[in-house]
């Protein structure tokens, strides 16, 4: 639901990187999202196509890397992963578990295509 604000932040981060390479265009942006971060890929992509128009990021692909949440059971020390929601320990059913990761929410890397021979200098 807050995907528009999130997409605007992604664009701002990507454009500020792209500005360091004048004339280059952004090909792809790699995002890392943990399964506890409650974001919808389709919705981000929808906004992306609208707001990246007329920026160095126009036409760039958003690549989503979804990470499962990692948990550890504090009773039997079983490590386990979950793709969605939350779950008790699959080994002993304990609720004394600790969430180790799953809230990731970051831009990991950006691919930029730089034209090496600029022949059509308008000036």
């Amino acid at each position: 639901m807050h995907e528009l604000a999130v997409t605007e932040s992604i664009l701002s981060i990507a454009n500020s990187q792209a500005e360091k390479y004048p004339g280059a265009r952004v090909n792809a942006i790699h995002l890392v999202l943990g399964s506890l971060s409650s974001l919808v890929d389709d919705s981000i992509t929808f906004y992306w196509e609208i707001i990246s128009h007329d920026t160095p990021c126009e036409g760039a692909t958003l690549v989503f890397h979804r990470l499962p949440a990692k948990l550890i059971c504090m009773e039997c020390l079983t490590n386990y992963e979950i793709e969605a929601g939350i779950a008790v320990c699959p080994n002993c059913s304990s609720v004394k578990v600790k969430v180790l990761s799953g809230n990731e929410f970051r831009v990991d890397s950006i691919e930029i295509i730089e034209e090496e021979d600029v022949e059509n200098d308008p000036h």
Partner: protein
Amino acid sequence: MSKTIHINVIENILGANDQLAITNEGLLHQYGTLGLNIMASPGAGKTSFIMKTISLLRDQYRIAVIEGDTSAATIDADKVSSLGLPAVQINTGGDCHLDANMVRNGLDKLHLKDLDLVLVENVGNLVCPAAFKLGTHRNILIASVPEGDDKPYKYPAMYSAVDILILNKIDLLPYIPFNMDYFIDGVRILNPNLITFPVSCLHGTGLEAWNDWVVQEIIQYRRD
């Protein structure tokens, strides 16, 4: 000819908001004013809870409220103003959450040096507000019995992101199927040390413990 350059960024998507939240926290700290961010689904009882909290504390402490609303309706802010307390309405323009910048605008309209406590009423929503730090000292979630016992399982980001859980409307427990063990298990998985206050704002049940906790927090953050 063209070449592809890979740039490692590794930047939190909401990093700019997080930075601004830190400056908000600094501002509150400078004046020794406790800031509480109050989040909940629509209808959980945020406004009732804030009104109850005001009535408990207003004789001893100076309180203001920042009201986040998706529309220009000033119903909640008007309730606070009618008590003679400072209230700032923030219209999010349809956005589903408050962010650090909106709260900064609200803080700038208040005389923080004359305040002990600022209550920030976030937009009613269990998803989006969890992602946006505001710079308040504590994040508080109001859950309510009629919402059902499965909410921690459905909104893990929210239940993970808070410091205090208020379970409101406990007077309805005899009338509504609500498995307290199942609810608490979900909370404990996500947030094992979460301080929880079961209350009924309607009848005043459980509010003494909440009152004691807030007073401790105000004293801890006050500078005098």
